[in-house]
């Protein structure tokens, strides 16, 4: 068996172990949040009554009435609830991610323009890097209410800070020789940014992008905790209110799935963008080669 197969098998085995561990925990933890609602719901609960109960979060339409309007709990309602709430969360996430990545990258590149701009930005960048952004959510709530704009801007801020500090750092680590080589060939400053700094810093920026992706998911769900009317974060909060750990758990599984998909998509793009790198150094977000 080759190394890649061993890696794959080991990864698969660890997932199975986690699934089994959860089931074991459900057996040894007998507590309930409210009567009939287990603190640690086993897979037999999750795959039977929990999924269909998500129909509660479908707001009606497409021929499937909402449960609140007296409709029955159906699988169609549950699927529609997941799809529509995932869609809302994704819109906030990707809009915020796009905005934050763009502004953070642009700001990171801008501060690298001169020695003075680097000096001016160094301290704020250092402070921002360690600032717990989630602490700002209530302030955003007051500023923007529980609106799409507010949630998107919050994601953008959390992601933007990571991109900004990551970019400023990565630009600073690009070897001078490449910039000098470009200058002696007549490249303008903008051409140097586009054709030298961006490709040269991408391998180092990769870890910031990954961190930004993870942070974006955390930020969007956290932003939805406070007053959003739709979205996966809102389902978690509303389930918590009634002690429905199983529903929170299922939504968490969906979040896990989405995060894994975004990581995998990024890994694919990253592989293409680092095709030029020596073998063993090109992209692999999971660390295995």
């Amino acid at each position, binding site marked *: 068996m080759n190394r890649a197969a061993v890696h794959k098998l080991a990864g698969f085995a660890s997932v199975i172990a986690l699934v089994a561990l959860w089931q074991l925990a459900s057996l040894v933890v007998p507590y309930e949040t409210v009567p009939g609602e287990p603190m640690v719901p086993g897979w037999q609960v999750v795959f039977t009554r929990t999924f269909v109960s998500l129909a509660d979060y479908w707001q009606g339409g497409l021929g499937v009435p909402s449960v609140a309007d007296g409709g029955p709990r159906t699988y169609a309602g549950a699927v529609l609830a997941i799809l529509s709430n995932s869609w809302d969360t994704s819109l906030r996430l990707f809009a915020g991610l796009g905005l934050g990545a763009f502004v953070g990258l642009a700001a990171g590149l801008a501060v690298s323009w001169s020695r003075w701009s680097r000096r001016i930005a160094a301290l704020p960048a250092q402070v921002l890097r360690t600032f717990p952004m989630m602490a700002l959510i209530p302030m955003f709530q007051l500023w923007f209410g529980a609106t799409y704009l507010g949630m998107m801007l919050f994601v953008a801020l959390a992601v933007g800070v990571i991109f900004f500090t990551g970019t400023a750092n990565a630009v600073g680590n690009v070897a001078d020789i*490449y910039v000098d080589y470009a200058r002696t060939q007549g490249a303008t400053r903008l051409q140097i940014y586009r054709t030298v700094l961006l490709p040269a810093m991408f391998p180092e920026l990769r870890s910031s992008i990954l961190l930004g992706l993870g942070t974006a998911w955390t930020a969007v769900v956290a932003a939805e905790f406070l007053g959003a009317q739709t979205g996966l974060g809102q389902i978690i909060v509303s389930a918590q209110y009634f002690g429905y750990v199983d529903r929170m758990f299922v939504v968490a599984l969906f979040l896990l799935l989405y995060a894994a998909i975004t990581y995998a998509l990024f890994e694919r793009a990253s592989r293409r963008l680092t095709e030029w790198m020596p073998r063993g150094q090109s992209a692999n977000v999971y660390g295995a080669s």
Partner: protein
Amino acid sequence: MAEVQLTSVRQVFRRSSGALVEAVAGVDLVFRAHEFVCMIGPSGCGKTTLLQLVAGLMPVTSGQIAVDDVAVSGPSPERGLVFQRDSVFPWMRSLDNVAYGLKCRGVDKAKRENIARDYLNQVGLGAIERSWPRELSGGMLKRVAVATVFANSPRVLLMDEPFGALDYVTKLQLHQTLLGLWGHYRPTVLFVTHDVDEAMLLADRIIVMKAGRVADDRQVTLARPRTVESLALPEAVAHKEVLLRHLGLNALVQDGKSAQ
């Protein structure tokens, strides 16, 4: 024609300790058009700094550098530089590397690729135009760098110990490639080296630098192409002896006296 004039050029650096270091201490030189000049000297003698000043990568502390009476105020593709370390962009395929300067100046894609292909062929790398630099050997990377500077049609070619890290055979092959291109396009070449034999093989003129100053300036009138035989002629041996003495290698010279 491209004549390079250096007038009272000084370059002073400040070390991190705060001490001032005079890397180039008042150099007056004229490099004539089409001349192949080698600069030789011990480490830290200021030869690389001088080359970077001519390239325009940093401003001179005082004095002036001019090419055909036009003061150098920054880098230009007219003064191409081949670096000591590998500077070929690893994220561009060979052809795109060679075409880079042309692209920066807005030459359209088909035209610049044809030019780049032509220069890759001239350095013997026609078959690797789609390769990534990571797939090339050290000698091939140097060939790409040489093709790249020539593709920019430089009037002055600056080379900073470009072949220092290469093996003996590859180095000799690259000398022939470089001399062939120089013979064809005739840029003025300023070539920094540690290697006395390399200087004897390549140069019309050898400048010895010590402590930021010109310590010697020698014309080499040996006929070209130079061969093992011509490099054993009395003129070549005499030059070599003086150069070795300048580098402090008196023990290698018969009478063992040091050069002045």
